[in-house]
């Protein structure tokens, strides 16, 4: 088996308050891996640590955050051992990221061509003219009509959907191996959303990109992703192939998430919600973080946090019931 493109081992990122008294475990002992060309979906509620995990991979965290433990192997190198300057050369060149707000992620004072061509000039030392030419090609590849005109326009002259495709063009400008998309479609309307997802998939195929797709939309995960990691309170509670997780979720939280998707066929007059609130990351319950909201919790769940059980070679879950359930299923 070839070694994965990216593998995170026991990665933790904590926010520490100025006095050092309050520690928020935004990302806690996360282990994940991703092969070249594959798509990994990361789902979870707001505040579950998805975005912090993405910024941890790029080592672009706010000043209060610290990566406290773990290893982060990318193409055989530990990203945590790189200097700031070496890390800068990874960003935009080998790992790129798309932000969620297309209206705010382009600088209003520079032309599209300048901003799309910028990584090429910085990472490959291209001249202004050749970067400009490449920018036109990139705009064409993200399906911007008449890119020769658009390239010298400013962001305010574009619609939201166009701007998000331009941000996508910025992402792929240096042909990275890994693209992280942080809820790239939340602010787009539905038809534009579908177009954009198709575009991302086409780009992925053309460029052999690995994709990390951060979202809270399980419908997108089903369409886009090979692997899925479900995050809750900073931890990955379940990780495995999408089809397996959708058919046979191991963790009660995953089941609850899947159960909360409204379906036309159900013909219900109410929506299913997960009772309760996610825990305060600065003062976690002693046992499993999901135990207070879990319909299946028993005494051990409230006293002792479950470790990450490996169910089979590609499935892992953090639940005391998971190994029992799995063997029961296997026996029946």
């Amino acid at each position, binding site marked *: 088996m070839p070694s994965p493109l990216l593998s995170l081992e026991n990665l933790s990122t904590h926010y520490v308050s100025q006095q050092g008294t309050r520690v928020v475990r935004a990302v806690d002992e996360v282990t994940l891996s991703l092969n070249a060309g594959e798509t990994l979906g990361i789902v979870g509620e707001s505040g579950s640590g998805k975005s912090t995990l993405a910024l941890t991979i*790029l080592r*672009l965290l706010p000043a209060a955050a610290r990566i406290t433990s773990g290893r982060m192997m990318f193409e055989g190198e530990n990203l945590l051992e790189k200097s700031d300057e070496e890390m*800068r*050369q*990874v*960003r*935009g*060149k080998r790992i*790129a*990221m798309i*932000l969620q*707000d297309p209206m*705010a*992620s*382009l*600088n*209003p*004072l*520079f032309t599209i061509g300048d901003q799309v061509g*910028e*990584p090429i000039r*910085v*990472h490959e030392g291209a001249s202004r003219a050749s970067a400009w030419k490449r920018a036109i090609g990139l705009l064409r590849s993200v399906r911007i009509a008449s890119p020769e005109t658009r390239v010298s326009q*400013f962001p*305010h*002259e574009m619609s939201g959907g166009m701007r998000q495709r331009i*941000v996508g063009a*910025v992402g792929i400008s240096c042909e990275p191996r890994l693209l992280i998309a942080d809820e790239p479609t939340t602010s787009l309307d539905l038809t534009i959303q579908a177009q954009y997802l198709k575009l991302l998939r086409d780009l992925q195929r053309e460029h052999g990109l690995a994709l990390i797709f951060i979202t809270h939309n399980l419908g997108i995960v089903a369409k886009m992703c090979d692997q899925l990691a479900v995050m809750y309170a900073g931890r990955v509670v379940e990780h495995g192939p999408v089809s397996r997780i959708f058919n046979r979720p191991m963790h009660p939280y995953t089941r609850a998430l899947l159960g909360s998707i409204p379906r036309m066929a159900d013909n219900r007059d109410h929506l299913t919600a997960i009772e309760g609130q996610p825990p305060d990351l600065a003062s976690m319950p002693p046992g499993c973080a999901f135990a207070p909201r879990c319909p299946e919790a028993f005494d051990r769940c409230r006293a002792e946090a479950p470790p990450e059980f490996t169910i089979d070679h590609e499935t892992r879950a953090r639940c005391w019931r998971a190994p029992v359930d799995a063997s029961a299923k296997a026996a029946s």
Partner: protein
Amino acid sequence: MKQYIARRVGYSLLSLFLLSVTIFLFVRVTGDPVSLLVEPGASPEDIENIRRQLGLDQPLWEQYWHFMASLFAGDLGQSFYYRVPVLDLYFQRLPHSLLLAAVAMALSLLIGIPSGILAAVRVDGFWDSAGKIFALLGLSLPQFWVGLVLILFFSVYLGWLPSSGSGGVLHLLMPAFTLGWYFAAAHMRLTRSSMLEVLGSEYIKLARLKGLPEALVIGKHALKNALIPVITLAGINLVVMINVAVVVETVFAWPGIGRLLYEGITFRDFPVVQGVVIIGGAMIVMVNLLVDILYALIDPRIRLES
């Protein structure tokens, strides 16, 4: 764009009209100029004569009409005290004020912008704290006091710099610093806060995600956005500096228009006060107009909104 400019010009003319009425009335509240022009014990007929000569015997609205009519003809009247046209006096003094303002502005930008950027990039660090103290002192110390302390040190104790008057470069240093410190503080605070706001934006995050060197993130993406409000303020301040240096010019006996205004108020020289204030007001209004237009040229978003 044309419509945008036309609307701005309209607002500017309205402001100037309101200013002319205000200064015309206010200057007349200060008292009777004739009592300062005649010798003690002058006869009532002589006083009445002078009043008629100066046109002060006419009703207010007629005086205002006369003032505005000659203003449109480009005439600001004659100084009661010097007996020469106000414009002549004004243009004698103006070069001194321009020189002082230009040097003070250069100082304020050279100090204010780099220290503001440094404070924002190293927020809560040493430079931020040092900058805060510098700005607090600049904004709160009265200019007459700063001027006097500078004179005390550099002229009286050290004997390095001349205490008053105009002439060489050395004469400029203390008045320019005294005038510029306040503005340096203002420019620094604005650069800092505007830089901080920009640094928190999504496009700065994307610039970092692209792997741009920090110098490019700060110097290109952040600085150009952060300087927009600073350019506005500096443009207005340049003209403000020419017109508000009354205290500095008086302390250092600098022969600019600030001191002309001071003399005009002391002698109740109505045409001088009206003239200096109207020209100053016109300059400030013009610069606001220019900055608005310049702003529209720099920032492509404003161009389209009109």
